[in-house]
């Protein structure tokens, strides 16, 4: 059994990881930028990452860190930019996706990450614990609180759009 080449890995995983990063950071254009940086870093360390079990989890983790770092750095500038009516550079995704992303942005970062890893990336509690570096109990608590926090936001979002 040989590990996948970097090119194979990149081509086969990028769309999945893009959905994850987009769900977490809520900006498709930024998710693309972040992801390209994460894959470039994966290539830098490919000799090690490529041979160790789950390179996709590595890219997801690095992409998440880059996204959070950028988000914190640019949060205020972006908010001001959007307040003045700037249009997003990329075309908008479908309505349901936008509704879910909007709702996700309304819950805390840690809960959002756990929810997205579990429900979108299909990771188990144990896998999320390993990927995010926290105890399984913490993951369970984040999932539970995240679901509770999302429920009203999703109802609002869905109802609002349906009756718009």
């Amino acid at each position: 059994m040989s590990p996948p080449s970097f090119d194979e890995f990149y081509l086969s995983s990028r769309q999945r990881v893009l959905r994850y990063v987009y769900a977490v950071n809520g900006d498709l254009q930024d998710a693309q930028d972040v992801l390209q940086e994460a894959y470039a870093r994966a290539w830098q360390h490919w000799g090690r990452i490529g041979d160790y079990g789950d390179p996709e989890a590595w890219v997801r983790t690095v992409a998440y860190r880059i996204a959070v770092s950028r988000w914190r750095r640019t949060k205020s500038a972006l908010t001001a930019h959007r307040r003045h009516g700037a249009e997003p550079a990329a075309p908008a995704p479908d309505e349901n996706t936008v509704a879910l992303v909007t709702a996700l942005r309304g819950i805390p970062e840690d809960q959002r990450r756990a929810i997205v890893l579990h429900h979108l990336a299909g990771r188990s509690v144990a896998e999320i614990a390993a990927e995010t570096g926290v105890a399984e109990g913490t993951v369970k608590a984040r999932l539970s609180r995240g679901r509770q926090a999302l429920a009203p936001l999703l109802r609002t979002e869905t109802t609002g759009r349906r009756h718009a």
Partner: protein
Amino acid sequence: MRDDLDQQFAGFGAELPPVAWASPTEIRRRGDRRRLVRTAATGAAAVLLVVTGVSTAMALGGGSAEPQPGASPQVSASAGVSDIPSTALLTPADIGAGVELMPGEVDDPRYDSVARCQSEGMWDGTPKAPVAGYAVRRTAAYRLDPARQTAEYTQWVGGYASAELAAQQLAHDRAGFEHCALLDMGGGFTHSFTISETGFAGDESLLVTFVVKMPDKPDRTFLYATFRVGAVYAVIHNREGTSPAEVRQLAVRAAERICATMAVC
């Protein structure tokens, strides 16, 4: 809620707008640029330290001459290693027929599972690695299959300011392998280290067996050889399937090359 959310996520991103992806070549080029920038930055920092050291020595000695442009970092012969010639590293032929050198640098040896074990409090990191780290390094990557983009063998060689510092580094790494012998990585993955043999090359050496266990997949086993020759510490990573005898033989050959080309034996 679980079912509701699963349903919500089921179609998530199914209709994302077309994405203009960078080609794999562009991504790799970007990664290579990052590596070059990092290497250049490390080199610049080293030069800065050397210039600072030289200036301080001049000030203390009352000298007024400027450092010579292009002067290489010098550590006194008694202190350790100031240069590692390319001939100190294994040649492709040393490893085997059909092996070729690959372009690029090899990262400093770092074991993610050991780092994780340390961060989770399973090991306090003692004995500590030398604070100063290596003074110079040289690396090489090799492959047997020309179609592969990743190295099948790598050699990392670090020159320290003294044999004691190199020994300190090896002792630190050894303790890491011993304290982090088995780590549950979650999701059914485990990483394990076993020091299978010692004392087969150089002044001191370890043959480390690293096993990755994965759910529903065969285990993967890699052998590392780490050894010290005077103030030089070296790590050889081998392709999967390399036998312990081959690894020992490579380490012995690598130690001999270091002895033959550097004044450390």
